[in-house]
C-alpha cells in the first residue's frame, strides 16, 4: 500500500516536473545566471522532493510548492555567492547594456534591474516573466492575495521605468 502511494506520488511529481521543466529551468537560469547551476538546482529539487515519497500526497498545490521550493533553493545558493560578488547597480548602466547579445549579458542586465527592486516585487516579476506563472498562481506561490500579486508586478515595472527614464535610458 505504501509503495503504491509512493509510486503514485513519484509519478505525480515526475509528470509535474516534466511539464513545468522549461519554466522551472528558465526561472532558475535567470536567478542564478548559469544554465549548469540551473540544471543542478532543478535536479536537486527533484531529488529532494522525490525523497518525500508518500508524504507528497499531503501537498494539495504541488505546483506552487515546487516553485516555492525552487525559489528558496535559488535564494540559498545566491546568498552564499553574494558575499563575494555584489550585484552592480543601475547607476553604472549604459545604453549599450540595454541591448545584450548573449545570455550572459542579458542575465547581467536583468540581474541589475531586479536588484533595483524590493525582493517581493522582483520575485513576482521573475515568476511572471521567467516562470510563466499566472497571477493566480503567483498569489498561491507567494501566499499573498491576487491583488497584491498584481500590484507588486505593476509597482515593480513602474519603478524600473522611472529609474531608467531618470537615467535617460528609455
Amino acid at each position, binding site marked *: 500500500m505504501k509503495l503504491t502511494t509512493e*509510486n503514485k506520488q513519484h509519478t505525480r511529481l515526475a509528470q509535474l516536473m516534466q511539464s513545468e521543466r522549461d519554466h522551472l529551468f528558465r526561472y532558475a537560469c535567470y536567478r542564478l545566471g548559469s544554465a549548469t547551476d540551473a540544471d543542478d538546482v532543478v535536479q536537486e529539487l527533484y531529488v529532494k522532493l522525490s525523497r518525500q515519497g508518500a508524504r507528497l500526497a499531503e501537498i494539495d498545490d504541488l505546483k506552487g510548492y515546487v516553485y516555492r521550493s525552487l525559489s528558496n533553493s535559488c535564494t540559498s545558493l545566491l546568498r552564499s555567492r553574494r558575499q563575494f560578488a555584489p550585484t552592480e547597480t543601475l547607476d553604472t548602466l549604459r545604453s549599450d547594456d540595454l541591448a*545584450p547579445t548573449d545570455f550572459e549579458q542579458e542575465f547581467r542586465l536583468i540581474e541589475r534591474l531586479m536588484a533595483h527592486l524590493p525582493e517581493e516585487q522582483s520575485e513576482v516579476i521573475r515568476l511572471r516573466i521567467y516562470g510563466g506563472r499566472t497571477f493566480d498562481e503567483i498569489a498561491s506561490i507567494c501566499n499573498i492575495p491576487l491583488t497584491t500579486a498584481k500590484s507588486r508586478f505593476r509597482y515593480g*515595472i513602474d519603478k*524600473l521605468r522611472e529609474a531608467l527614464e531618470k537615467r535617460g535610458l528609455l
Partner: protein
Amino acid sequence: MKTNNNLDNITDRRVEDLLSPRFAPTTSLEFKVPAPRRRTLWQAVRIGAVAAMVAVAVVIGISSVQTSTAREVVEQALTQLLESDNYLVRFTAHVTENKSSRELYDIDFDGTPTQGTVEIRKEESKIKMAIKWQDEARSMELYDGESYRRYQNGQLVLERPHGGIDLTPLATIDNLKEYALLTGLLLKFREEGDMILVSTRGDKVGIVARFSKSEGRLLGAECSGQYNGQQVTVLTVDQIDFDVLPAE
C-alpha cells in the same frame, strides 16, 4: 470600473521588453519515475559504499575511443563497459573500519589511505566483483551475484546474501541520469578545452572523471568532498585495464 486587473494598464511594454528573455538557455533534463525496487548500481551505494563508489567511478570513468562531445565519450565508455568481459581497477581510498561489520571499510575523510584493486567480471547481466585490499589482513570482499563474502588472512570470516550489481540499466546516459537523479547523485558533463569532466555530486561525496578528447582516454577519476572547509579527495581510481583477468 478600472482596476489593477487590467494588464495593459499595469505594465510598461518597454520595461517588460527589457526583462523578457531572448537568449534563454535550454535544458534536456528528464524526470522519469523509476521501476520500483529494482536493484541497481545506485542502490548499491547504500549497500556497499566502497565497492559501489569504485564501480561508479568505473562507469563514468572509462573511455578509449576518440569522439567529439562529452556525451559521445561517455556513451562510448558505457558501451565499452557493457561489452568488455572484465576489468581490473587499481585505486587508493581513505578508509576506516566499518563498525557494523556489514562492510569492511567506510570511505572516511579522516581515514587511512589504503590501496586496493577491484576485479569486475561480467556474466550476462550480473556483475561479479572482488575487492582486494592491501591491508594487514590481506582482506578480500567478493560479490558474486548471490552473496557477499569476506576473507581475511585467507579465511572466510563473513558471508551474507547480496543480490549483486546490475549495470545493464545504466547502458545509456539517459538511464544513468535517471537513476542518478533519484538517488541524489547528479551527473554533469562539462568540457574545458581538451578535457571532458564528468561529475556526480551526492550529499557528501562527488565523483569526477577526466578524459582527454585528443588522446581519447581516461586521465583519472576521483571521489572528493568538502571537509573542514576544504576539498578532500577520498578515493582515486589510478588505473583501469580491460579484459586482462584470466578466465575463472
